[in-house]
């Protein structure tokens, strides 16, 4: 283990896509002497950035899976998780955040707070992750860190203040003025590795004092000591560092730093800030649930001498077997230790323990509380908790969104079916938002995920990593069915065909319900014996899997059983299941069912000159334009659009805006499908059923 707990940081780098976080990570690795040469994203020299370790990521210039790596800065051990920025891969971001103690929120000095920044910011807040902001790309035309700082306050609702002001901007960007030390810093040498301290240039003095005052005003809200010191004019650097650290860890304050990773400026000062302001693992409270004591919450202590509690947050299938990334919250683990997976209730022996560096790894003997490492050959799923034998804890499980899109796939040749199965098995294990099933009717393999790009990436990975060419069908939207009115049922299932008969009668009603499904038993007087009530529930639930309109799952339904009848000999579990199914069929159509479609929240960011075209394109797609926020030359248009209308939108948007606009989308809610489209779907379903009957 590198250093003690106090000298350890687990941080993530979160940002909107294209804010330059991979470039920033690359520079961090370089200045921490983990790599000896800088590669750029989409580099011409044949190599992509070190953190984008998959071939596909290099080609597309985007980060898909998080790579974790360990660096040392000022005698502090920092584990960095590079997180993907696209909303389709947010499960990766969420998993990373779950195990982090702090984050760097990267913003573009031109784009400022963009749609994805809002999503990432929400996630940071959900997992109570303290953050420092880094305004990148100060060398770009239109860079305005002051505006971005205001946006962090206004749009993200954070209490933020600048810790630095720039010396020059755009192509004249040279260095930074530190508002705590009141010194200017420049970054010399071919890769900015030599940090030179100077006096503040006279022309920047007024600006620097103005923003220092703003910083002091903000920090004084966090610390009485600083407030008093300001009044008595005796503020020290240490006092400010301490107050900023406290404010950041308590998530009351967001320090704002800046620079240009691409131009090698400002990264070392950012690393200083990571060490100075973000918490060490012992400063963050982590809670586990004790499964032996009715899930009572237990506070974990980052003490290496206690029994071990670790959380598997990421799996990867490599050429040498499964690699499991873990965060250790309590105790320590070493090679040869025996550990216990509390979900599968299986014990296992720790084989190899490694520390990851992008795509190469370093073998270590073991490590302790607070650290992130990877284990080899452990059979577990992501989200599992691993403990020392004797403990039976589970870390709070992470939130997993439901997939909204599905795609039928088929290997182009029968020989690769095996490899396809292996690939699917691995992806599903690694990513809980990626699901696979075989459609019982069509016998097709269906993959499900969070969006078109999400599934595209997996189809590409099948090709590249498993050499499986697949033929894909048209992406299918995950429709649902729901009833809109109450309807009564009174159904008797009766069968007498020699031997023991079947008899069950159920009376009651179904009605719309706010949640997924509810079963209420209001029978008094034992008209249906208690042991058959669960059979009724089971029978109704079986019917929810496939609605009668288009065969989609039914949501938002409550069944209330008010009466019934049984036969002392002929009633059975199966008879009441059949009765419930018959009752459901009887009531469903009367309950005015309708088809629901997933509606996505779509955010388009575009130069304002194209906003008319964007409005038009969203309107054409049955979208509701909720708002458009204009900020100088850019517009951020928010709309609600049915997912089925969004296929291929990225191509349309690109050609409409000369490639200058981008969009993100995420699932918002289910809404009623317009009658004409519903009719069309039902017609297709009828045709499908008829065709199947003929077969």
């Amino acid at each position, binding site marked *: 283990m590198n250093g003690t707990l106090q000298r350890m940081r687990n941080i993530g780098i979160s940002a909107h896509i294209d804010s330059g976080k991979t470039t920033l990570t690359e520079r961090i690795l370089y200045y921490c002497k983990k790599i000896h040469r800088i590669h750029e994203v989409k580099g011409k020299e044949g190599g992509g950035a070190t953190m984008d370790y998959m071939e596909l990521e290099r080609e597309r210039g985007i980060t898909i899976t998080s790579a974790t790596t360990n660096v040392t800065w000022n005698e502090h051990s920092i584990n960095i998780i590079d997180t993907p920025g696209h909303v389709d891969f947010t499960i990766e971001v969420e998993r990373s955040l779950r195990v982090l103690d702090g984050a760097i929120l990267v913003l573009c000095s031109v784009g400022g707070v963009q749609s994805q920044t809002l999503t990432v910011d929400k996630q940071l807040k959900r997992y109570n992750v303290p953050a420092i902001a880094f305004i990148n790309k100060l060398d770009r035309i239109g860079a305005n860190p002051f505006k971005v700082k205001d946006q962090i306050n206004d749009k993200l609702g954070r209490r933020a203040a600048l810790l630095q002001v720039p010396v020059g901007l755009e192509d004249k960007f040279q260095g930074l003025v530190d508002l705590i030390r009141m010194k200017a810093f420049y970054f010399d040498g071919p890769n900015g590795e030599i940090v030179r301290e100077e006096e503040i240039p006279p022309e920047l003095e007024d600006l620097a004092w103005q923003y220092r005052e703003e910083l002091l005003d903000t920090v004084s809200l966090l610390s009485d000591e600083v407030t008093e010191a300001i009044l008595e004019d005796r503020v020290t650097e240490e006092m400010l560092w301490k107050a900023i650290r406290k404010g950041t860890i308590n998530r009351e304050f967001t320090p704002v730093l800046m620079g240009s990773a691409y131009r090698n400026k400002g990264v070392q000062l950012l690393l200083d800030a990571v060490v100075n302001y973000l918490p060490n693992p012992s400063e963050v409270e982590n809670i586990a649930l004790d499964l032996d004591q009715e899930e009572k919450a237990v506070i974990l202590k980052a003490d290496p001498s206690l029994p071990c509690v670790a959380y598997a947050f990421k799996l990867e299938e490599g050429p040498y077997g499964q690699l499991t990334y873990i965060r250790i919250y309590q105790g320590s683990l070493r090679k040869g230790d025996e550990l216990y997976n509390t979900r599968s209730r299986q014990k296992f022996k720790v084989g190899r323990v490694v520390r990851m560096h992008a795509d190469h790894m370093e073998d270590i003997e073991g490590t302790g509380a607070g650290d992130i490492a990877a284990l080899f050959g452990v059979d577990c799923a992501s989200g599992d908790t691993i403990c020392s034998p004797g403990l039976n804890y589970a870390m709070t499980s992470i939130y997993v969104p439901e997939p909204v899109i599905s795609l039928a796939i088929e290997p182009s040749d029968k020989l690769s079916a095996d490899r396809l199965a292996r690939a699917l098995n691995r992806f599903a294990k690694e990513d809980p938002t990626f699901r696979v099933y075989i459609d019982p009717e069509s016998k097709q393999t269906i993959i499900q995920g969070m969006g078109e790009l999400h599934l595209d990436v997996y189809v590409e990975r099948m090709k590249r990593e498993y050499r499986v060419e697949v033929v894909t069908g048209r992406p299918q939207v995950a429709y649902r069915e729901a009833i809109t009115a109450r309807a009564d049922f009174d159904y008797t299932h009766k069968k007498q065909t020699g031997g023991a008969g079947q008899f069950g009668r159920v009376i009651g009603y179904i009605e719309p319900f706010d949640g997924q499904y509810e079963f209420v038993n209001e029978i008094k007087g034992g008209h249906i014996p208690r042991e058959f009530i669960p059979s009724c529930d089971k029978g109704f639930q079986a019917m929810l899997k496939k609605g009668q309109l288009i065969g989609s799952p039914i949501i938002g339904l409550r069944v209330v059983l008010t009466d019934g009848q049984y036969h002392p000999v002929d009633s059975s579990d199966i008879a009441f299941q059949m009765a419930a199914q018959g009752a459901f069929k009887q009531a469903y159509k009367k309950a005015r069912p309708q088809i629901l479609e997933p509606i996505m929240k779509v955010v388009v960011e575009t130069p304002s000159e194209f906003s*008319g075209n964007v409005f*038009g394109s969203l309107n054409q797609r049955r979208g509701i*334009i*909720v*708002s*458009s*926020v*204009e900020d100088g030359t850019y*517009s951020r248009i*928010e709309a609600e659009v049915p997912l089925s209308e969004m296929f291929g939108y990225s191509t349309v948007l690109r050609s409409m805006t000369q490639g200058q606009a981008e969009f993100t989308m995420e699932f918002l809610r289910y809404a009623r499908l317009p009658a004409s489209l519903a009719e069309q779907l039902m017609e297709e379903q009828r045709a499908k059923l008829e065709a199947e009957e003929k077969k």
Partner: protein
Amino acid sequence: MVKKILSARSPIKTLEKNLKGGYGPGHLGVFASRKGVGKTACLVQIALDRLFEEKPVIHVSYASRVDYIISWYEELFKKLAGLENLRSEMEIHDRIVRNRVILNFRQEGMKTEQVLKSIEALLGPGHFSARTIIVDGFNFYLPCAGDLALFKKFAADRQLEFWFSCSLRGDDPLFDDQGLPFVLKDYLSSLDIIITLEHDDGRVRLNLVKDHDQISNKKLRLELDPQTLLLTRI
């Protein structure tokens, strides 16, 4: 239709009936008062009145966050729906959302040409056929005769009605003898209707101070309930 009934009973209709020259396409109206008296509540109720009739509305805001504006609509819709016992509340709500677009301009000194260009983008290529434009947070304290002339021309060309809010500030007196806010006196040629909001014994009264060519300090038979922020007839 429930919505029609709701709209017909709306105090906004009472307001319009009181205007001698009526109100409609090509007109610019203003609600003026100090901050926090209820201008935005009045604007949103005008918008809701149009939305109940399924007429699309564009809400232009210079200051507030989008979620803040939406919450104004949600609050007042809920109160109106509660008052009128709307049965298909959700359905009407969804239609309202569909017929409303919020345009938010965050930058200080955003040019009126740009604002009109964005509205045009929505009306033209965006196929959003609004006839009512609500403008909240416009700064009348900056010289803006030229801007208002542009709004006026745009309203006439595109057959739109505009409703503004004007936040009054500074020391008293804010109004002249006729009840006209001093800050609006230079812009009378562009503004057709000026209504001021005034605190009066725990109530908020509405005064019609400019009705097209007439300057008259006429107390309207309308007030804003300070509790619910709904306009009611007296």
